[in-house]
């Protein structure tokens, strides 16, 4: 069974349909990009897969568990154990240092371990920035803290919602290369949402979304050169 199985998910708001019967599977260890224009429903789908939002109808199975049937407490446990999130905005705590921001994720998962958090930051190339606050770091560096924070609890799934949306091309490439290398080493599953065609070519598979539907599904050949 695939690690992520989305089965005919519909998401309705009072005035709009965000998802109109989406179905998809993601195998364990796969890097899947979802690309679509603004309002196509890709972020809504990502939030539903991550248990941040619930579907109006349909099922979402993660590792054979239907997360739509979980209680709030069970969902919180699911999120802390199974999923790591990266967003367009870094959402780092401004008055905590880089290492403290990562330790915060450890704390909410289990307990803080400064050495482990420092190692995670070294792994994303921020070994010299452990004691810096977010305001003292560039956007690319902040996003790398987010990656360290998202992966510190070894989630099976990394959900990334426009992770490079605020970065220039150079920093975008650095972040994606980092993700690629971590993915190769740790074999976690990535579902990445983007509207950027450049970003969409990183990974192994590309899903296209439009108006709440999946309109395309293609396998990618590999990392683009530029």
């Amino acid at each position: 069974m695939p690690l992520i199985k989305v089965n005919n998910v519909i998401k309705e708001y009072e005035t709009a349909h965000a998802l109109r019967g989406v179905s998809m599977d993601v195998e364990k260890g796969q890097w899947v990009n979802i690309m679509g224009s603004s309002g196509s429903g890709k972020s809504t789908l990502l939030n539903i897969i991550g248990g941040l939002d619930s579907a109006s109808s349909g099922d979402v199975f993660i590792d054979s568990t239907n997360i739509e049937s979980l209680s709030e407490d069970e969902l919180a446990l699911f999120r802390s154990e199974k999923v790591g999130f990266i967003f367009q905005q870094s959402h780092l705590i401004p008055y905590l240092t880089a290492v403290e921001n990562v330790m915060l994720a450890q704390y909410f998962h289990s307990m803080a371990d400064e050495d482990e958090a420092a190692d995670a930051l070294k792994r994303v190339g921020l070994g010299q920035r452990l004691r810096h606050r977010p305001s003292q770091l560039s956007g690319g560096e902040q996003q790398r803290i987010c990656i360290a924070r998202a992966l510190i609890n070894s989630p099976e799934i990394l959900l990334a919602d426009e992770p490079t949306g605020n970065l220039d091309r150079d920093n975008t490439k650095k972040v994606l290369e980092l993700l690629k290398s971590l993915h190769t080493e740790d074999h976690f599953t990535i579902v990445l949402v983007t509207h950027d065609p450049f970003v969409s070519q990183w990974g192994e598979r590309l899903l296209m979304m439009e108006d709440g539907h999946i309109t395309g599904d293609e396998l990618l050949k590999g990392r683009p050169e530029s």
Partner: protein
Amino acid sequence: MIDSLVFEAKIIGFKEGFKIGLVWFVFYSYLFINDRTKLIRPFYAGLILSVLCSMSILLIPNDVISVVFIGNTISMSFALFLILSGAALYHASGVNLLPRKSNLWNESIFRIIVFILAIIFFLPDLAGTLVYLDELSMLKENALMTSISAAAGLVIAGVIFVAFIKLYKPYWMGSFFAIPQLLLFVAIVKLFGSGIRGIAELSLVPSVQRGFMKFIHDFVHQTFVMLMVPDHPLLKKTTWDFIAIFFGSGFASFASLIILLTIPAVFVYHSLFKPLPETGEESRVSRRRIKSIILSDRRKKALPVMLFVIFIIVAWFSQGEESVSRIFIPEPRPLIADKGEIVIPLNDRTINVTDGTLHKFSLIHEGEEIRLIVIKKADNTLSVCLDACEICPPVGYGQRDDHVVCIYCKTPIPVNTLGDPGGCNPIPLTAAIDDNFIRVEMKEILKKWGFVNRGESEK
């Protein structure tokens, strides 16, 4: 209007019912959480046997099993549970105190232990309560009314417990307890609910406090007496003032509080500050997760212990004030020396020194107040002493039950031993007593007053 004795019987019955309900509930919740509720049966067996045995104790004459004996048994059972809780915690911390291959969770062993501990817990308390209720019913001269009232109190407690448990089903509280915490909980329940002097002393706290104070007092006193010869120049009043600090109520009370808090403090240390054990997990995340589960469990189980600590501290200090106030201290009546002696009437319109209560008298000599005490002993003789001993500052004595109690160091001295010289005893006076008067020569009073607070024993 409710008769106070009948009301007291109801309170005593309620207390026993509440105690039984509380211990049952916590133990059952613990078993419920651990999915072993069948092991409650030996608890019931121990409880029922304790009820039957305690009732049969009423058939034994009072002079064979006294209240003092039962009181001492209760204190010892409290100490046993306290020590057992410490031992169980030590065992749980990884040091195996049991013989190899033994397993407390082996059901048959566990059943026997629960049965025995239930008897040790309930039997002395129930026996003490029934003996006290028996005394109450004799005072009331209506045993039936007293028994009904006590039973009503017990039933009220039972109904409250059953209603609470049926309504809320709070068995989750069992997750706050492991075996060490359970044993400590039982000890604390005993401390706060095992007094057998009725409303006057619902808890063991006053007697534990007195016991500790007596121990500290005797230890310090005997040590200094051994260290110093009577005519040593250091044995001045100021020296004894200093020594007396060690067995004054403040120091003794504080020291005994520390002693009582030692085991709960070890629990808190073990729960909150002891380093977490290393786990064999390969991944750092798994290690962290397991450590956090252990830490969370430790914190959870520290919570009731911290509540116990708060209870002990609050009860201790409030009880300290109460026990001081419960000492009867009569106002001294003025005396005037005439023809080299003082004369105290045994019984006139204003005074009856043979009524069994403490009586105080004072006279002024060369600007200094000298006080005397008079009290009737059990053998109907009168004891006449100075209202001071050779050790403490001359603050004097009060009366509590069949003891006089030093107001300074709280040492209780049985009335029947008055007349013995030395130490903490009131300094005895040689008096001439006839059918109407007590006469004491001023020469005798002044000579003995010279012993006060200087450590010079007349022995």
